[in-house]
């Protein structure tokens, strides 16, 4: 499901035009981004938890060239599914 499909579905569900929906989604994404930029943890009940974590620097070896590289520390946004979502996904996957 790509962005277009997603917007279409969301528009249907909310009874809005796709344009308005897209605009709202953009607002939401901007809000999410600012939330994560601040390093906040976002927990959505029944869906999962977004969390920004710091990855420490590490030495990696390029598989192709064999060169050793120092990979700098970075902040990454991680997502952990909630237990209820896991169950629902499991059922959906099985059915």
């Amino acid at each position: 499901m790509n962005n277009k499909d997603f917007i279409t579905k969301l528009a249907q569900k909310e009874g809005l035009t796709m344009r308005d929906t897209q605009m709202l989604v953009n607002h939401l994404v901007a809000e999410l981004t600012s939330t994560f930029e601040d390093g906040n943890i976002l927990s959505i009940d029944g869906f999962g938890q977004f969390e920004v974590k710091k990855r420490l620097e590490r030495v990696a070896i390029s598989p192709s060239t064999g060169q050793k590289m120092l990979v700098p520390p970075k902040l990454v946004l991680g997502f952990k599914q909630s237990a209820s979502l896991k169950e629902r996904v499991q059922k959906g996957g099985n059915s």
Partner: protein
Amino acid sequence: MTDTKLQLTDLAHGLSRRASLPLRYSEDFVKSFFQIVEEGLLHDNMVKVKGFGTFKLVDVNARESINVNSGQRFEIAGHTKVTFTPDPVLRDAVNKPFVEFQTVILNENVDTALMEDLEGDHLSDKVQAEPAVNVAEERLAQMAESVVEPQTETSDESVKEEQTAIVGELQSKQVEEVVEASQPVVAGSNEDNESDGRSETLLVAGETSAAEVEETVEEVAEEVEETAAESEVAEEAAEEVEEEPSDEVFSDEELYSSSTEEADNNHSPSFTTNSYTEQLMDHHSHTSLWILLTAVLFTILGYCLGYYWHPIDLPELSPLTSQSEEDTTPEEPTEVEGDVMDSTVVTSSQDSTHVATSVAQPASAVDYPQLDGGEYLIVGVMQADTMTAGKTLLNMAIKYYGDKECYKYICVMNGIDNPDIVPLNMPLRIPKLQKK
């Protein structure tokens, strides 16, 4: 970073402020947002939201794990999980504080050092092979200049092989000088027997007096006589070979003179042959070393003689030896016996001089600790090295000798008891090895 845990309502508050929407409506919208994401996941396992990221369903295979508390093994059942990959825009936004950090390519010198080690292997191989060639060349130059050419033409690696091959030739030469065997077939068997006998007599020579040596040589000569007498061809070729003895004696004399010249040229002119033989007898423990050196000497002598007599047939050693044996076969049964035996006795005594003079450098093996039961002798210091970080005795051994087992010699040379514990920056002497 505030690390505050926000809920859906907080998100809805933010959205309502941004989009100037009623809070209730925005909350509903956020809920719908995640519901649609879930629906999309269930529908086709993947949802992409522009500017936010991609949710995917990923199958996780069952795996075995161990309960940390009880230590029991249990299986984590296979399941599907939701993964989220942030959109590059979001990813960069999140990583903004660390954006100035770049991936640095590290430790180029380590890579090059490894390369150098590999190159060093080839170099050390050459360095290792050169001394043998040099020694051979020096001696050969003293004996006969013409012989140097074929010797140098051979590649470094093949020199050793050639030498061993020459040992075979040498032994057959000894057979000529002492025995003069008959047919090639018989000669083949004789070669082995008589080479053994030869080494035995040499062994005895190290431990007994000169007179006893003569006796044993005579015994060997007698034994050989019998074998020669059995051969039918002996009498047939008798006439042909009558010329040979003179050549042989001449060559022996030549060799003797050259050996004495060597002795004179060397640093210890005061040492006579007898003193060397006495030294020989004193060092019973190193008898085997002397025998080895003698064998090497005979190798080169035999090579020179063979080249003189049969310069064209030289590369083909086996036909040469059998042919020459046929030629010289009848020598013994005839009156030449005495001369031959004398010459052999002389050569055996020459051996000691040769051994003592020409092999002055390897004799320094006594000065260094030796590895018990090892295949090589430590005869000097090839190179100095230092144990730095990243080096091991094993890869040093591979670097210098091409054989990791040779680390033992480095240990012995430097008095290292435990090869696993070598102090950092410890100076190491890399021993120069010579095959026993």
